């Protein structure tokens, strides 16, 4: 199993698409930073226009913490989409090039092979989100400096600079769980569909539907609490004035259970199916 994982990591390191993934993440980050640099002050003014009549604002609200928060919001769609495309490719490329047949012609168990794919996919997802977080913190603080954070979440919430820093770190860590869920879903879709284009399309539809369903009230308490799409936003909860830790723990644990279930489905399907590229 460890040798399979090492081989998978070696292949990922050598593939040019890994570089494209990293580049895509950094481009999104750069795009947000450049936009904020040129237009951020105007947007902040527009957002706080009414409040300025009643309150006095000191310091610069267009600071590193706000930029980090804006980049954090790429966890809604951009980052999971990139991750789903890259990670499903870990398997679909093996089907396309038929290398999966050459691998399975070696004394390798199907279970260990697919488990190693899941383990490496999860590790890759964690690495990407952490890379995004670290680079975002470094670049944002370097260019914009530190300051208090203003966030609109059911109303405007203000957080002191140090408090904002902690909340942003926790949000990224919680976001890892959501990203891992989407990555595992995409790999399972790759197991089922085998074809890269079909997997990308279905992954994108899954992500869009998941985001839409998050906002829909099912008029059913159990569904509203337990349905998977209602669990992928726990990282946003760190920006309520009082952090609802119990809800965050519950959502993360339940989402982790969904992740394991999706992974199990993928493993069972892969094990039962014949290997044909």
């Amino acid at each position: 199993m460890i040798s399979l994982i090492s081989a998978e990591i070696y292949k990922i390191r050598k593939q040019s698409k890994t570089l494209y993934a990293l580049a895509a993440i950094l481009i999104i980050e750069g795009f947000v930073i450049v936009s904020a640099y040129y237009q951020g002050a105007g947007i902040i003014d527009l957002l706080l226009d009414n409040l300025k009549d009643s309150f006095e604002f000191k310091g610069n609200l267009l600071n590193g913490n706000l930029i980090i928060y804006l980049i954090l919001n790429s966890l809604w769609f951009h980052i999971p989409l990139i991750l789903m495309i890259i990670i499903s490719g870990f398997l679909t490329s093996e089907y396309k090039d038929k290398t999966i047949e050459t691998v399975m012609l070696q004394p390798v168990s199907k279970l260990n092979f697919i488990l190693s794919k899941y383990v490496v996919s999860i590790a890759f997802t964690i690495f990407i989100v952490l890379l995004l977080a670290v680079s975002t913190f470094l670049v944002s603080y370097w260019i914009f400096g530190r300051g208090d954070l203003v966030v609109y979440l059911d109303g405007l919430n203000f957080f002191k600079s140090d408090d904002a820093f902690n909340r942003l770190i926790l949000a990224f860590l919680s976001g890892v769980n959501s990203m891992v869920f989407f990555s595992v879903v995409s790999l399972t879709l790759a197991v089922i569909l085998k074809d890269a284009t079909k997997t990308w399309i279905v992954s994108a539809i899954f992500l869009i539907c998941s985001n839409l369903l998050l906002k829909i009230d099912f008029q059913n308490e159990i569904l509203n609490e337990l349905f998977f799409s209602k669990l992928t936003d726990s990282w946003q909860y760190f920006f309520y004035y009082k952090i609802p830790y119990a809800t965050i723990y519950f959502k993360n644990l339940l989402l982790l259970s969904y992740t394991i279930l999706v992974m199990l489905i993928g493993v069972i399907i892969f094990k039962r199916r014949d290997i044909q590229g």
Partner: protein
Amino acid sequence: MMLKTRNICKSYGSLEVLKNVTIECHKGKIYGLIGANGTGKTTLFRILLGLIKQDSGSIEIDSHGIKPIGGIVEKPALYGYLSAYENLKVFAQIQGLKLTKELFQQCMRQVGLSPARTDAVNNYSLGMKQRLGLAVALLNNPACIVLDEPFSGLDPMGIFALHELIKDLSSKKQITVIISSHIVSELTDLCDTLYVLNKGEIIKSGAAAQLLEESVTTYKIVGKNLESSEVMKKVKAVVLDKSALVSSKNIEITRVLKELIEEGVEVTSCVPQTDLKTLFGPE
């Protein structure tokens, strides 16, 4: 007995691809599986290699090594973005084998490739990929290798080189080799035993030379003055430009050749022509 399959059956929906296929292979021998396209050769090989499961029947392999059987199905599938060394490293690593420099050089030389090349496998010719695929198949010393259409797409030099390599593996390393092809000439001088597959069934099996001899329906004789030969007229040969086709029915070819020489015809070659319909069975 190195490998034995007993009554292998496989269907895809209502389509029966393999019907009670039984083959027996001995150590160090070369076996040919011959048949027209779509007769189930690749499916049988996929089953032998464990890529797909048979519906019924059994496979016995008498090998206790880490890798009892290796092979290539259709085209060699390698990581095109990796070099030969990196490919062998990945495939060795996943089966718990450490690819040392010495082992890499030995693997490459065994299949007639230069260990000095460091570029991506995408740049390799099909013949070189076949050889590298064979090097991957031979990792961990399997007792048996299965090669599905290994000569497909190779030039004559490539075919000759692969023939020599397969013969070497069989004679020097005592590896059992099973090869499939739909081109008879590729297997005639290579295989000890042939199995003929038709519509998913083994319809003939036996010594390659004998099976091919039984399927010879005509001889192509090349020589001078064949058009004026009385012997050719007697055996009702179809005389073409500098050659003649003689039906094998009711004639003894050695006697015909002797008579031709006595008649003064300069015979330069006599090639038996295998009738594919006779060999492969009805379509």
